[in-house]
């Protein structure tokens, strides 16, 4: 990870005047704008056919066939307890790699990839009005008038103890 970040920084150096710059994938979900570091993103695909997995945690939407590999996709809206749109032609799966695991995240749409200087990111989650849990938020990026919620994917995509408990309850 270290190395990848370095590489990006160096690339940015050329046109961003030695300033540390993040490259972020911006997506929409339930009316809010979120961002993930592009270095964690493998690809962005259209919504494929998913196969439901009985007994899996509720936010696991199922598995998909990604060119012969079977990967798990999660519904971020369920995880964040927010209301997403119905799946339509704008829906996308962002395929990410976190902790050596490849996962897909279902989002309402993906709008753009932006560059944001590190200095524009604040880690003061109390100033935002998002409904999602603070622990999932790595920081908040400000781009003109927009507030982008930078996700901590490690925290988002690991099954917390709370999830496990609710899961056990669900199964019994």
């Amino acid at each position: 990870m270290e190395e990848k970040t370095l590489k990006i920084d160096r690339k940015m150096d050329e046109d961003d005047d030695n300033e540390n710059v993040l490259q972020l994938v911006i997506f929409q979900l339930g009316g809010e704008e979120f961002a993930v570091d592009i270095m964690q993103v493998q690809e962005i695909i259209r919504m494929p056919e998913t196969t439901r997995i009985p007994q899996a945690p509720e936010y696991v939407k199922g598995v998909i066939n990604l060119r012969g590999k079977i990967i798990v996709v999660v519904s971020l809206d369920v995880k964040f307890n927010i209301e997403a749109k119905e799946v339509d032609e704008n829906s996308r799966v962002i395929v990410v790699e976190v902790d050596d695991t490849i996962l897909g995240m279902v989002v309402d749409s993906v709008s753009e990839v932006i560059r944001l200087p590190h200095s524009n990111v604040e880690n003061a989650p109390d100033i935002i009005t998002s409904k999602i849990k603070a622990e999932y938020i790595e920081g908040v990026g400000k781009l003109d008038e927009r507030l982008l919620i930078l996700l901590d994917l490690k925290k988002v995509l690991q099954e917390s103890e709370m999830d496990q408990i609710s899961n056990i309850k669900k199964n019994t």
Partner: protein
Amino acid sequence: MSMSEYCDMFKAEANEHLQQLNHTLLELEQDNSNLENINIMFRAAHTLKGMAATMGYNKIAEVTHEMENLMDSIRNQEIDINSTIINVLFECLDQLEFGIENIETECDMDISAILLRLNEVSSSAEKHEHVAENVTCVSESIDLKEDDIKKCQSLCEDKDSSIFNVQVTLDETCLLKTARTGLVLRELDKMGTVVKTVPSQEDIDSGNIDNEINIVFVTANNENVVIEKISKVSEISNVKIDPLDLDNILAAEKTESMPSIPSTPTSTSKSMKNSMNEDNVKSVQSVRVSIERLDNLMNMVGELLINKSRLNQLAIELETKKLDETLASLDRLTNDIQVEVMDARMVQIDQVFNRFPRMVRDLSIEQKKKISFLTEGNEIELDRTVLDEIGDPLVHLLRNAVDHGIETPEERIAKNKTETGSLNLKASRLRNNVLIELQDDGRGIDPVKMRDVAIKKGLFERAQANDLSDREAMYLIFEPGFSAAEEVTDISGRGVGMDAVKNKIEDLGGSVELESVVEQGTTIRLKLPLTVAIIQSLLVNVGEETYAVPINNIVRDEVIEQDDIRSIKGEKVVNLRGEVLPLVDLHDVLSVPHNKENYRDNNNLLVVVVEKAGQHIGLIVDKLLGQQEVIIKTLDNKLLKNVKGFSGATILGNGNVALILDVPTLV
């Protein structure tokens, strides 16, 4: 030269030799007169020594070197083989196994004890001394006797030749000096006549050489030619050539002091007459391929199969006949490739079986039991992935049999049984399965005792326990935490194990069966699929969802009537021709989100009958889609760790994913 890249290969092949050594030593223990077995052991030790030395594993090389010497002495009948020697050799093998297992720290291995033991057995039994050991320091000089001088003179007269004193110095590192000197002498013989050597030919033959050899040599060639030819021999550090004047020699004998040291005693290995095909060393026609590569190949074959079925489906959708022929040949080809790849992954079960005779031997000695252990069907082949997994379960079963099954000799005599118990491990092919049977003629499992233990452990009330059939009572042995052993020993009987064995075998898509008669013995049967990577499965629909049921688990399918379903203790059953078949509705178990009424034909229900631990269970499904070969892909994701009932997933012809039901954990 960096040797690390050879490490894996070294380990793999060294282990093969170790297994052969173990196997042969066990045979020698039974019959120590078999000379060929001694030869096999000698060769295996020798080969292992060469390999280890090449890798720089000096401790292993040293132990195998001593073993080789010991085997050589036995072969030459200098030492008689006895049980002490056999035990020491077994210890050597353990030491070597340890060394190979921990090859990174091989240099730290303490081999002093084992070398001492080896030394003891070889010296205490040693009767004949090596000739070479008695060789003392001989100081010699070129001392031409009258005969030699006459010979020189006649040689010089015959041809236009001259006499030289050739002094050859061998490399410090030269190890086989006799042989090296032999090569030098042969070169010289091609160019002229060797009149005399210092040291003498006898000393050279017995290895009694320092690094220098002086040769009196008559040749018609000039000095430079001689130097050039000899320099071409390897391991020669220096060649000096001086003309010899016979008159001078006659006048005053030129002497050169030639210190000489006795070389290490060498074992004379006579050429061995080998009986054919007794060694298990693989033929050269094979190459070693890492299992990872085969797995990759397997995955690619999987992709190929998926694409093939996609093409088939497309051809049907497009209603084109033009593709038929090509598709048919593609079908054949992919099938052939699949068969080849599957075959390449097959390994003889002997790879697991061959360590058991030694294990049973050691265990029976420890337990003071007499056991005759036989294996059968060692040549049966199994997929590598299956083979890798069955070792531990089999070890456990064998230990149980030795520990709890077979009685002590006294006990057996008192029971009017033969003093020596018998334990048989047999593998056989049964259609697409391999059957492994472990049979002992020991105590057997007593259902009465099993019920008592179950009550004692609080698993059942007395009345419930009495309700259990004998068979059910015996099968309690597979329940987690259940142990029928009266005493807990080191080896087994801690109550872990039999359930683990069963789980492991079922994870592999196999099943475990038990048969036992009190005081007559126990037979445990493991049924294993030949392979796990590709399985035949029945695709079924439950609601809109498609699932794959492994054919291995399926007994048959049935159509039953809704009205025939009864409820016993809250469980649905149906009485089919006298058999009470428990039913499981997959709609419910899999919590399928579709309304089942929409998929079912009024009164008729489709049932797939599967087997779980010898019991039949009916799975209610909505539609049978047909049989298909599917490639198992694992569902290893932390988020799915609580998910049970699936052995993996597969990709269907239409590109969608279907889950593969794991019958043992699902119902």
